């Protein structure tokens, strides 16, 4: 059934290697300045400038402008950091993991996904620095030759995290760029204006599709994919260790590393769907990103939602299995305290609602998919809120119990990073081929033989 194949093959729209290349490169080379694009980038640009103001005021006034207090010394910065880095994972999973698994449908998605990873990782990367009490000293976390002969403290999960994020951001950028090179070459050759020729020509670094270039290319890309997959797992495990590594009530749990990986999967796929569904319509990519993709992604989202659900259940189990009194107190405060709505929102948005996706009808209903994904993105933020804030609120000594409320500047920073992320995506859509053309070519050739059913 053509509807569900990786590439729409209805006569009229059936793309060939050539037409596909022309379609995709036309998007960037013959940009039609669509109104939706101008409006959205105006809006997201505004949000980004809010971020700039928020950061400026933060550096001037100090992090006292945030809601953090005693004992809740971690707040929005850490919540949003974990949230963004989890979103970033989606791209890496699709582009690296499924590349290794030779999943053919990934081809038309991985460019969008990787680009998303890139900007999400950047947004995440900002937070750990803003979070510091003295941000201008962040470089003290580097093991650089200091005149005092002192080193960073390598036993701290925060330092592990610092190295993990550093590695992850750098690797993602390089992996993304390497995957981009052949398509940049295509654009260079299709370019009509001098500026385009220079721009893409330089970026393509002289890739011409030589046999030698291709041979090493496949080797390099394969190896890197094989590294990226464990890397992304390690990054989220280490983010989990930021909490599990502490002796804090509600954090000190061995299940956190896998738990955080599950969470990353869920929010990653959700964000990919959130971007892909509108983009395929707006950029007329229906013939490359088909219902089939939405269907597969929805199934993956459902799967990871079940994984996360399992983690939640284990969380409850370990609380009541352990004899720790405070663990119970803290947990009870989560499920019926003044912050309980946030906990239950987490459960509903991440576990309950996604169960709709068992129905095939739901999986092909684009509006529904968008809503579910949006719910998950919000739900995952709430999950991090319960983990970061609610645990510290209720620690061993009742005398050190406290409350927490985000301030205006907390929210401004959060929405600012959302703006930054979307602005990045919009610019990417404008200036780089949003579907990986050279990989599509292999796919289009395979299409001559009937396509495989499911991944």
């Amino acid at each position, binding site marked *: 059934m053509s509807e569900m194949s990786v590439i729409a093959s209805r006569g009229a729209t059936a793309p060939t290697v050539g037409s596909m290349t022309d379609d995709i490169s036309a998007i960037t080379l013959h940009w039609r300045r669509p109104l939706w694009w101008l409006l959205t980038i105006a809006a997201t640009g505004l949000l980004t400038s809010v971020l700039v103001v928020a950061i400026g005021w933060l550096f001037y*006034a*100090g*992090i*006292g402008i945030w809601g*953090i*207090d*005693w*004992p*809740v*010394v*971690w707040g929005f910065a850490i919540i949003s950091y974990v949230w963004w880095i989890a979103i970033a994972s989606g791209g890496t999973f699709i582009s690296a993991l499924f590349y290794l698994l030779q999943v053919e449908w990934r081809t038309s998605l991985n460019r969008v996904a990787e680009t998303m990873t890139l900007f999400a990782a950047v947004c995440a990367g900002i937070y750990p620095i803003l*979070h*510091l*009490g*003295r941000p201008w*000293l*962040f470089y*003290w*976390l580097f093991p650089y030759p200091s005149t005092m002969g*002192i*080193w*960073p*403290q390598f*036993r*701290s*999960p*925060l*330092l592990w995290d*610092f190295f993990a994020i550093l590695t992850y951001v750098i690797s993602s950028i390089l992996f993304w760029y390497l995957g981009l090179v052949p398509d940049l070459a295509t654009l260079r050759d299709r370019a009509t204006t001098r500026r385009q020729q220079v721009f893409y020509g330089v970026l393509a670094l002289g890739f011409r599709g030589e046999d030698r270039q291709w041979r090493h290319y496949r080797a390099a890309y394969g190896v890197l994919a094989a590294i990226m997959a464990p890397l992304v797992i390690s990054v989220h495990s280490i983010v989990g260790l930021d909490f599990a*590594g*502490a*002796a*804090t009530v509600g*954090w000190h749990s061995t299940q956190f590393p896998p738990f955080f990986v599950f969470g990353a999967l869920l929010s990653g796929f959700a964000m990919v769907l959130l971007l892909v569904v509108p983009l395929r319509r707006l950029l007329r990519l229906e013939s490359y990103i088909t219902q089939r993709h939405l269907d597969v992604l929805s199934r993956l989202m459902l799967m990871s939602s079940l994984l996360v659900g399992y983690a939640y259940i284990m969380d409850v189990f370990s609380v009541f299995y352990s004899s720790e*009194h405070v663990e119970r107190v803290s947990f009870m405060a989560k499920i019926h305290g003044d912050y309980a709505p946030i906990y239950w929102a987490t459960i509903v948005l991440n576990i309950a609602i996604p169960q709709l996706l068992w129905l095939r009808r739901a999986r092909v209903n684009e509006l529904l998919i968008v809503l579910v994904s949006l719910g998950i993105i919000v739900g995952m933020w709430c999950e991090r809120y319960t983990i970061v804030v609610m645990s*510290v609120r209720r*620690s*061993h*000594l*009742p*005398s*050190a*119990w*406290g*409350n927490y409320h985000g301030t205006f500047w907390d929210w401004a920073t959060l929405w600012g990073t959302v703006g930054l992320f979307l602005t990045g995506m919009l610019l990417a859509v404008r200036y780089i081929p949003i579907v990986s053309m050279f990989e599509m070519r292999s796919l289009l050739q395979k299409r001559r033989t009937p396509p495989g059913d499911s991944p």
Partner: protein
Amino acid sequence: MSPLKRPWRSLAEWESDPQFLARAAQEFPGLAEALASAHSRRQVLKLMAAAFAMSGIAGCDAGAPGGRLIPAVKSPPGIVPGLPNYYSTAHVIDGFATGIRVAHQMGRPIKVEGNPLHPASLGGTDVVSQAQVLEFYDPDRAAALAFRRHPSDRQSFLAAWTRQRRSLMNTGGEGLRILTGTITSPSLAAQLDAVLTRYPHARRHQWEPISRDNVRKGAQLAFGQGVDLVPNLSAVDVLLAIDSDLLSSAPGHLRFARDLMSRRNPTRIPKMSRVYAVEPTPTLTGAVADHRFIASPGELQWLVAGLAARIVRGESPPDLPPWIAAVSADLMANRGRALVHVGPDQPATVHALVHAINESLDARGKTFYFIEPVAYAADQSASLSELVDDMRAGSVNALFIIDSNPVFAAAGALGFAAALERVPFSVSLSLHPDETFSATTWSLPMTHAWESWGDARAFDGTATVLQPQAFPLYDGYSPHQVLALLNDADAPVDSLSLVQATWKTADWHESLATGVVPGTASKKANPTLRVAGMRESLSAARPASLTLILRPDPYIWDGRYANNAWLQELPRPLTRLTWDNPLLIAPALARRLSLTNGDEVRLTVGEARVVAPVWIQPGQHSDSVVALLGFGRSAGGSIANGGGVDYYPLLGHTGTPTLVKTGRRAELASTDHHNLILNVAGDLIKHGRLTDYQQNAHFLRKDEPPAHLYRWHPEGPAEWAMSIDLNTCIGCNACVVACQSENNIPVVGKQQVIHEREMHWLRIDRYWEGEPDSPRSLFQPVLCMHCEQAPCEVVCPVGATVHDSEGLNVMVYNRCVGTRFCSNNCPYKVRRFNYFAYAQEEHRLPESRNPDVSVRARGVMEKCTFCLQRIAEARIAADRENRPVGTVTTACQSACPTQAISFGNLRDPSSEIVRRKRSPLDYALLAEQNTHPRVTYEARIDNPNPALTTRRRGA
């Protein structure tokens, strides 16, 4: 950011600031005239703006007349840079002295320590005397002389007074009145007498806002003569404290606390004492009691009457609560070793009854003794109302108000302020430009007690010579100087010679060095009890209506310390409230009126009414509403003004109070963010009963040795450790202020406390246990535990907090980047973070800080260091003399009046700390965390009466 930040003051503002102009007037004679015309005023100011800017608002003039500051070319002997010098003096409140020693660094007073030789201190200090450092350096102190709120100068005041004096001399001082606080100072008393002989018709009035009249009248009633009762609590086996202030504010309370608590730790003394408390609202005495009974003020009289009936006359009156029988039985069973003490709020009749009870308990000479009254006797409230009447009648021509603030603190019903306007010539002498200062015709700034010579007597009569600690910061008069003026305007006003004259006989230098004038304790008195006058009071009925209890705030007292930020931000022992004084109501009353913490009510007594928020106080009698005085100042200084509610207007009005909910809410800053009542605080604050302890001393120990993957002991020359005895801690907070003063801990202000960002390194946790209506309260000082396996260190990414070889968990401020992970990982949550540049924004002179402790920057974590600076000092001394490091006393330890805190080196087998760690009651907080804290606690043991233990605890 912090509300303490002082707004920048423009020239225009200066123009309207009498203090400023006054200072200007003194520096530029004739300025006052120029300023008189509004036209030329701006001119003048413009012209001299530069001069002002240079001289500065709180300029540094020589102070005392003729005094000069000369920079030391050769450093004076005994002053070694970096080493403190100690000068003994005393802190005087309501006339009574508590001996202190002031630590100086390079001549700057920076820290208060107790005076071990002084009977009222024995080395301990209370919160208020600790906070005197801030009081002394307070930038808001009265800085210059004013005439009708306009700047003036000494010359014009002297001129005016000389004119006034001539007429007074002719009339023999007709209409001359002098109002002072309670006076125990022999020198002042002598001067006053001299004044009265010089002006036969003059009269003196003595008055304190917080009256102890009932105590005096009670003795008068019982013995027909004034006597002071001095309890000897170390000899007391059974104490019944009736609404008592023994541990909080009674003159000599530090001494009483030491004596009483010295009998509370069964591991150190053969026989543990037993304490009963009966009170309408929780007090510190109630908190340490083995049995605490709740009774409304009305009921108290009725209960005491019943008690007297049982003990004095062996009757057994009907329908008394059953515990009375048990308590009186216990008291009588311990004749000669029992004592009943009653607080100053109870009427004289009750005091008289209690005297009778103590007599028949055969307690005199054993658990207490009588002495001749220490203070000059006067019926203070009567004395003041008399004065006000005369003022209103216009028969007062000249009024001197010396170090007293009646305009603010006199009972609202009196209408002192209105009456004062009818006095043609009134002079006030005040430390702060307070309400009275700005209401009198002439206002003189007073020198701080650390700026002039003086003397005062302790609760037992022992005298102390107050020696100045520094040249006056501002141009002020001492009370002695003013009285000298009264005597003879032309005589040289030299308080030193005045005081020396008083103590000719004593060894002057000895007295200064020890801080005690030897052999000055009051003579014992031996009055005989008058049985007459007992009967009528026995018929006291049992009223059941809402009663309003007006008490001084434990820290800012009657309001005089309201401008002291340390005291404002110090959590009140039981409510943990700071910066505010809501009405305290019982949970039952709150339920009845459906009120919650912070709800605003309109409180009406007679025709007086105030609007105030409420706070629910567990353990308070449901018929009582408690209002703490001293807040709501209008001219108390930039910190005091506008904070809290002024309840003085209610004072003196009669009628049953009514509460009406306004519907509005107020934000209250309590450091108690959880307000919950634990059924069992046992895991955190281990406590048990004496009987169990006697069966098995280790009955609180759960003896499973914690498992280890790896165990590492720091191998240093010393092992610093601390032990805190929960049996003797009375939750007085002296240690907290001592720590704040020693370690330059910033004050953050009400808003930041509401935001849960208080900075105290040492906090005293208060847990409620039991029923909300009558819980018991448990105190637990919590500071950095200096864990040998510290969780905080492992998670710091830059190694800003590490362990040193002597087992200290040290914090490297300069290395801290502020990830705050350490705080998350601290099970005890003792780390504090500088969210803003709190220290910078403090309203405080830099000179007042401890130079040995670095002031922390914005974005840096901080915490208790075990007073590292003091340890370092000891190390250096040890190295110099090439011997093992000696004893170190932390700030909290030395301040503690009951020696609950012990600190020392575990490597020194002879040390107190080693003994304490061997105590069978010794336990570590959250031991299961395997952090191996160097701070441990001694579990609290209670000694309940077997006859009552069947009943619910604390009922």
